[in-house]
């Protein structure tokens, strides 16, 4: 009986945080981590530079940085800050940890991942997603009235991290590994879009758009050299 009752709940019935608490999550996180934001932005800029001129070592470095960021966000944001407020997050946090392990494993072992050097639609979308997550997503806080104190920074918070990861995986080869690594970031973006929609946040469509862009890039025919 208890199981069947779950189907009668609306998504909004399961959301336990209010818009003000959600906004304060990021403000408090930023306060607690300052000045780690500067380091995170610097590392993100370095990763973007690597994506623009990718080589085997550089690609591996980007993937390792992403894996570390997924582990860091799992512990500092999801587990310590968000899970006490929203009990469903306690079940999501291990999946974030799993993503960190998958990135470290599938993304670096043996040949790891390869990234394209020649411009294409796929590469443009991938780099565009990464650049958005690094430079523009933090500014969404300004546009939504939260202020820079509540900015979501790549490497420190889940949404820009998932979007940046989608960007890298959107253009990575081999395809099978990329698809395997893409699933969890995409799922996070979908749940984040739902959360933001339920909170009536104007930027709710952004994570959805990121998933759509990543999928479009992945389905776009790869340049022959990378196949």
């Amino acid at each position, binding site marked *: 009986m208890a199981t069947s009752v779950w189907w009668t*709940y609306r998504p909004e*019935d399961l959301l336990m945080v209010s818009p003000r*608490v959600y906004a*304060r999550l990021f403000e408090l996180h930023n306060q607690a981590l300052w000045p780690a934001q500067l380091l995170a932005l610097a590392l993100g800029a370095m990763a973007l530079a690597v994506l623009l001129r990718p080589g085997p070592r550089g690609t591996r470095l980007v993937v390792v940085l992403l894996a570390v960021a997924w582990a860091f966000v799992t512990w500092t944001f999801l587990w310590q800050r968000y899970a006490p407020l929203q009990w469903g997050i306690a079940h999501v946090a291990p999946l974030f940890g799993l993503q960190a392990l998958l990135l470290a494993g599938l993304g670096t072992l043996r040949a790891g991942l390869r990234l394209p050097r020649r411009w294409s639609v796929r590469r443009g979308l991938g780099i565009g997603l990464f650049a958005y997550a690094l430079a523009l997503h933090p500014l969404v806080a300004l546009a939504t009235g939260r202020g820079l104190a509540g900015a979501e920074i790549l490497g420190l918070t889940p949404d820009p991290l998932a979007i940046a990861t989608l960007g890298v995986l959107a253009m990575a080869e081999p395809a099978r590994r990329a698809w395997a690594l893409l699933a969890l970031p995409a799922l996070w973006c979908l749940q984040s879009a739902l959360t933001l929609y339920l909170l009536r946040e104007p930027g709710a469509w952004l994570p959805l758009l990121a998933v759509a862009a990543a999928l479009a890039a992945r389905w776009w025919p790869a340049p022959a050299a990378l196949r």
Partner: protein
Amino acid sequence: MAQPLPALSRRRLLRGLLAAAAATALPSAGPLARAAEPLTRVLPGTGEALPRVGLGSWITFNVGNDPLLLEACTAVMAAFFAAGGRLIDSSPMYGSSQATIGHALKRLQAVERVYAADKVWTSSPAEGPAQIEASRRAWGVPRFDLLQVHNLRGWEGHLETLQAMKAAGEVRHLGITTSHGRRHDEMEHVMRRVELDSVQLTYNIVDREAERRLLPLARERGIGVIANRPFQRKRLIRRLADKPLPPWAAELGAATWAQFILKFIISHPAITCAIPATTRVEHVRENLAAAREPLPDEAMRRCMAEHVRGL
């Protein structure tokens, strides 16, 4: 080095906080004075007279350890008590809400004032006592006034526990809850079979399913009823926000839709109290002010429901 505030200063600080909330809520009243006590209704079979508007804590008090929001919640509770409120309802399901309430009760020195209503929420009856004790510690109260089985989860085992606790004086009253109109058949079954002090269910001006069987049964069995989701978690208020109140709402003393809806709910003869949740001091004032005369009679209640249905 910073020294802890001396006891007198801390007390004065707390009085100031309460006074500020009271002054905001009741501009004409002095500090801690309550110009007009809210109407009360006795929880049947217990002799406990409860103000007919209480305070819920779902989402609104789930603020973690954010010092800014903890103080905001403390101000809400200060205003609630200053306006004559007593019953606060929470659950271990509500994230950090219990700890928030405990924080405010301590800051306001209001442990004696509150009617503490909480729930047990686990499918394992064996885990019930430990969960209840954890909840009690979070609230910082010597015992709960009311413990309820949340959403009827594992109700048979938990009610045995609660009955034993009541017999031992470890809880004063016991009950069961549901929400969103779910499990009314099961709730009716328990109400007929077990001696309860209170049930909690969803009842408001548009969610009236409980009127058919549960509310009459509660009266028949002498069981109190706490109405949750009075505003459908703001949805009802949002739906009505751009509609004008009917002119005759003034005759009921309803100046807002929230008061209109609350007066409808608490005027049902079976309802002990409604428990709206809020993050805002002015809404606490507005809600508690609904628990005053005049309240609608049955004919007026029909008129109110008809009016909202037509909007």
